[in-house]
Every structure is written in structure tokens, then in C-alpha cells.
């Protein structure tokens, strides 16, 4: 068998990377950890977006976590509900009222890479992956989701791509942090920061800490 034939298929490598990004970055399971994650997530938005106000803190009732994400400077008001079973409801509001509802319903099937992929091959796949592979995976998860919507509002940058095929609720919320950030320099720096962060986490196969994930990149 030649060296060429032994190389793992690039799509398969990226599938392993994709699975790692979701599991190591957003694989939060229990309610307490989710609450902590969401609290930090909302707190991070003020600095990341460069706005003057903190977000209203999340609340929980009957196992449903609710929260609001406001950026009045872009005339955008979002509210979300995250149920115990992972059901995510997000309302995008604009000056004139609700403009978009996003639902992610776990009662409906989506292929789970985690259960399909052969775990014994993970390390080999990661070993063969390149920086471009990480970039491609982060693009589709966060920076440029393959399926996406544009909010057709003058106050929202057209570069904001709201992913419509993201089934992990925390990943979905996290990608909004990037997509709704109007500062090009922060967006560019965030791409570099997350590439390094995820590369390191994947190479060491360790989950990413909430604080690391929610940091704001330093712009030189």
C-alpha cells in the first residue's frame, strides 16, 4: 500500500475535527454547567461587542433557562429559551417587532458524528489534520455556517450570517456572538484566537474552559 493510499480521507479528518469542536467546546451536559456557561456567555458580550451595557442575567424556571441578548445600538433584541432536553427557542427582534424565530428541536433526528465515528481512529485523524482543516471546520461551525440567513436590516451588517443548521444549542448561541459583532478587527482577531484555542484543545483532547472560550481577543 502506498503512502498516498494510507492517508485518511480529508472529509473524514474534518468530520473528526468537527466532532471535537462540538464536544470539547460545547459538550456541556448538566443544567448547572449550562447555567454557568450561559452566565459567562452573556457577560462576555459587552466587551466583545464593545457596547455600554451588560446583558440581563439569565433565569431558570421549571428547568427552562431564559435570557435576553440586547444590542440596542444595532436595534437588535434577542431572547432565548433553553429547555432541559436541549430544545432551543430564539427570537430575533428588531425595532418593528419580531423578525425571526429559530427553533432547534431535539425530538427530530440529526446524524450524530459522535456515535458514528470510529473512536480508535480519532488520534490518527487529528494527527493528519492541518491548520486549513481546523479553519474549515470553525468556518462552518461559527464563522461562516454553510446554511445561513441574513437579517435584511440596515443596522445589521450583511456579513452577519445566522446559521440555520446548527443543532448544538450552545454552539448556536456562541456563533451569534461572532456573527452579531460589528467590529471587523475583533471578528478577525477572534478567528485567529479560536483557531489556536481549538487546535490546542483538540491536540490535547481536553475540553475548553468556559472563561477561555468567552475571552475577548486582543487586537494588536
Amino acid at each position, binding site marked *: 500500500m502506498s503512502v498516498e493510499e494510507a492517508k485518511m480521507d480529508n472529509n473524514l479528518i474534518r468530520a473528526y475535527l468537527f466532532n471535537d469542536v462540538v464536544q470539547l467546546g460545547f459538550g456541556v451536559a448538566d443544567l448547572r454547567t449550562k447555567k454557568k456557561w450561559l452566565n459567562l456567555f452573556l457577560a462576555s458580550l459587552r466587551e466583545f461587542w464593545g457596547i455600554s451595557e451588560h446583558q440581563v*442575567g439569565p433565569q431558570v424556571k421549571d428547568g427552562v433557562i431564559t435570557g435576553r441578548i440586547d444590542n440596542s445600538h444595532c436595534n437588535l433584541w434577542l431572547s432565548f429559551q433553553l429547555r432541559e432536553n436541549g430544545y432551543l427557542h430564539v427570537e430575533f427582534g428588531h425595532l418593528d417587532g419580531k423578525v425571526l424565530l429559530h427553533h432547534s428541536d431535539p425530538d427530530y433526528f440529526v446524524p450524530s458524528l459522535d456515535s458514528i465515528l470510529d473512536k480508535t481512529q480519532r488520534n490518527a485523524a487529528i494527527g493528519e489534520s492541518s491548520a486549513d482543516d481546523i479553519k474549515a471546520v470553525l468556518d462552518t461551525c461559527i464563522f461562516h455556517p454553510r446554511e445561513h440567513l441574513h437579517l435584511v436590516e440596515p443596522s445589521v451588517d450583511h456579513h452577519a450570517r445566522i446559521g440555520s443548521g446548527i443543532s448544538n444549542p450552545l454552539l448556536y448561541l456562541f456563533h451569534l456572538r461572532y456573527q452579531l459583532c460589528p*467590529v471587523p478587527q475583533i471578528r478577525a482577531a477572534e478567528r485567529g484566537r479560536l483557531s489556536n484555542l481549538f487546535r490546542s484543545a483538540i491536540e490535547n483532547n481536553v475540553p475548553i474552559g468556559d472563561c477561555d472560550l468567552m475571552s475577548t481577543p486582543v487586537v494588536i
Partner: protein
Amino acid sequence: MKRNRFGINLDEGIPLESYEDYEILFVDCFREAAAKLRLWFEQEDAPPVLVGGQIGSGKSTLIAKAIGECNSPPDVTLHFDRESTNLDIGDFLAITLAGLIDMAIRTNADLSHLSLPQELGQEESADWRGLLEGLRPKVFNMQSFSRRTHLRKNIAENRDYFAQAIVEMGKQIERSLGRSLVVFASGIDKFSTKEASSLAVNDIVALLSTFKTLFEVNAVHLFSKPGSSFHVLNRIFVPTAEEGAILEILSKRMGIYAKGLEKQLADIAGCSGGNPRQALRLLSHFVSAGKNKDRSGTEKLAFAIRETRSDFFSYAAKPSAELMKLVKGTGKIGSALFSLPGDRETAGTALYGNWIFLQQSLGGDGWRAIPNPLVGAFFEHAFTPEDPEMQILRRFSETHDVSPSGLGLSRIDEKTGKVKTSDQLLWEYLFSGVELPIHCNLTEVLDVLGAALLSRERADRAIIAFKDKGIIDAARSYLFAKANTFEYQRLAHIVVKGGVGQEPLAEIDEFLSGATDIYSMEFEGEWYAQQLDALDKRRDTFIAKQILWWISLDDLKSYLPHWTQLRQLFEVFVLEDELLGSISAVDLEADLAFFSDLVEAVESSEGNLVSNLRKVLRYLHHVGRGGEDGQ
């Protein structure tokens, strides 16, 4: 203060300080004044000079920038607005003496012919460091405070002797340096020419005029009458800024979010009258108003005008309507009016309190002046078409929104039964906050305080007035809980008593010398005028801190007229007894449910939040408002 490089940077218009401040936010508004200032620093034998402007004009920022860029920064900086407690000559001389002793020690000046340390109670005549510690203690406690008070009293009783000693010491330092001693007398601007302390200020200015001294003064000091020590000095006037420069300041403050707000920012610049701090306060309230998505653009601007006017002018000493009409009608004012005995024409009041803005000298006695756009129309019975506020709001409402109605006022005129015009509605809305601070329920207070209290990176200050003392413990707990929603902040609270036999400024000094994140103080007792005036002068002591003052509304009404300077730094809220209506037990329980199991340590943001929320919940249950729906 940590700045956001690309986004929004709001504060009350405090002077820029750090390299980052200047890099991100500075706008060169006063080129002529800056050039004169640079020249003054460069000339070794330059005579003393007054650098004067109105409150919030940007003089501190201008001076700080000139000092940062010059080759010969001041040898001695005296902060007359940070240490005074009695506002008498003893304070002023002691502050000066401490500054010069410090410099003499640093330059090894020969002070052997002076024996001030021994004369002021040190064991050895050469113990200058001991004397300096007594005059300017590094550690603040009752003992050091008593020692300082004793020294200042002693100095006041022998004022002529110590004044002469200061001159001697300065000359000795100059010999040691081989050049002129450069002194920066900061904070003279906080002392109005009408107060009792003006005599002491006059004496200290005369004394420091022996040296190359830069005096930071208010515009009123530039118009002092012959015989005053200010009168003979050279002066550099910091005028109002051009509207374009104000617009640039506002745009920089909004960062990336300025895009799309050009018209609104232009309107705010128009309302600023060319005063940078007023522009920034308007912007801050405008942004805050935007959190309520139901507010139209017009409402946001009207809200900003109303709130800013309330912050700066509620209960303030007013100039006469005749004077304001004169300024409005002629667009100028004669400088002789500013120094009339007893301020007969109330021009000094108008100038010191920013009721009018001076724009530039017209030569001779005349100055181009305008009424402050926030208050000019207050002296009319109704808006006239040419009133800048009316023009701005009408233009704003025409271009941005449907109409200026919907401002939360009754649209039916009770007398005539007719629907009010837009102008009537606007007029009512704008003036609803002139005589009283804005009344807010707790939610609104929280909204405005949010950006400040919820972040350690900000340093803002608020006065919360209350009618019902019974609710403030719960209100305070709620605010403190919210302050800890995202990050752990240490909170300290004391009751400060004013009145006869009390030393409230000493208590405040001691409290502020402790390490905490939010300093909360409740004012009690019958503070008398001198204590209130002294506190007003200490404005800049509070700049770098997050401070909450709790004062009963009745007391606040009598305090505010004394606080021309302080009100520039504090926002004032009246906490109505709406606590029960604005916080529901259900919401509190949802907050508690969210945070309770996140508590890992008592001294953590979650621990503090939960502890305070429980206090509020107990209060709501105690007063019987903790029902199913919290109503």
C-alpha cells in the same frame, strides 16, 4: 478606566488621563489655547498664568495633555480640591507647604535656615519627612487626621509667618534647581468667587504668584475685579468647542456604533452648547434611553435633554430671567457684569453654573455668549420657533420619526379639552425635570446604573434620593445583588453623619482609603453649609471610584444648591417607593433558582448575589408582597 478600543466608551466627561484615553478619545478642540500653554511651559521665566474655562469645558484634559508633552513638567502639583476640609487659609497653606517640602527633599534643597519641623511639633528641626507625613499622611486613620488638623490650625494661626516661609523655601528650591520653580495649582476652579473661601483662595494665589505657577481656574476667575490677586495675572481662556469638534468627540465615544447615528449625534452636539462634558452626559443618557426599544428617536433625545438638565440644574441657584434674555437677545455679555459686587446682575452665577456659555472675546469688554441650550428656553414662557431645542427636536422628529407625540404625557389639554400640539407636548416633557430630579422606579434606576454598577471597569457615581427610609435597605440589597450578576464586586456601606461636632469629610476620606469596589454612603444628620461646600470642592477625589450616595429627598433639595461641582460627576435619581411594584417575588425566585447552585464561595459574585437577593425576598415577604405573582 479600561477603554474599549473599537466600541462605546461612556462616562460623565471626566478628564482624560491615560495614554489609552488620549489615543482613543482625544479631540484637539482648543488649538489656540493649547499653543499658548505649550509656549508657557517652554518659556523658563514665564510669569504665572491662569488657565480658565467653564465647568466641563475640557481644561483639565487640555492641561494634562500639555504637561504630558512638554519638556519641563511642573515640579510641584498642588491639589487644592482633594484635601481641603475647612476651606480656610490653613488648608491652603498646608497643602502648599507639603508640596514644597516634598520637592525640597527630592532636590536636596538646603533648608537648614528654616526650622519649621520643630516649630510644628517634630522633635528635630531637620525632620522634614516627619513634617511632610504629618501634613500629608500616607496612612489615613484617626491619629493621622487629628495630627493633620492640628498642624493646619497652627499654620492658620501663623499664616503670615508660614506664607513667608513658603516663599523662602521656594527660592531655596530654585537655587537648588538653578532655574524657576514650576508649580501647577490644580483645583482652584472648584472655588466660586462668591464663597467665604474666596478670601483664602485669593491669598494663596497671591503667594504662589511669586513662582512660575499655572493656576487651573474657572472662567469666573478670569473676570475678577481690580485688587484681586487674579486680576494682575496673564490668562489663557478655554472657550466652548466648535460643534464639529463636539461631533468628533461624540463619534469617538460611540466607536463603531457611530455609523448610522450621524444625525442624532449632530443633534446632541447642537444641544451641548459646545461644552464637552455636557455633550457626553447627553450622549450617555441618549444611549441609556435606547435600551427601551419602545422609545422613538425623538423620545430618546428628549429623555437625554431632560435627564441631563436634571443632573446639572435641579435646585441650582438660578440667574435672573432678564440676564438670560439679554444674552439670548444680543448674543453677548459685558465682562464687567461678572465682577459686580454681590453679583448684582447674577452674571457670575450664570457663568459659574453653566447657565450661559462664553464663546470668545469680542475685544474690549464684550464676549460672545449664548444661553446654555438645555436651559435657555426655561426663562421663556413658551418655546419660540428659534429656540435651539425646539428646532432640534422638531427637525429630529420630522426626519426620524412620525411625530414627537407619545412622550408619555397626557395628549389632552385639561383646560381646553383639545388635543395638545406637538410643541406643547415637547415643552411639557422637556421641562418636567427642571425643578426636580427625575423620579425613577427601581427598574429605571437599575437601567441607568447598570453600566456602572455592573462593571468594575467603570467608575461612576450616583446619588439616590429616597422618600421612604424603610425601603432603602431592600433597594440597596437589590442593587448590590445586580452589581454582582457577572463579576464579584466588594461592597462597603457606611452612614456618614454631618452637622455640628461631626467630621463627615474625615469619615469619607477614611472610608475611601479602604479597598473595595463600590463605596456606598448614606447621609444623615443636619449637614451645614460649610460641610456641604467643602464636599463640593472635593469632586475630583471621587473620579476614580464607583460611589453611591443615599440621601433623603428632603435633605437633597437643600444640599444640591451647594453642589455646583459635584453634580457634574454624579447622576441623581429619586427612588420612589415603587420597589414593590418593580420587583416581583417570582422574578427574584427565578434569579435565586438560577444562581443558588452556582455558589462555590461566599466571596464570589454568585455568593454575594444570592445573599442579597434573599434579603430582598425576605423584605417582600415581610411586607406581604411575596405572593404568587409578587403583586
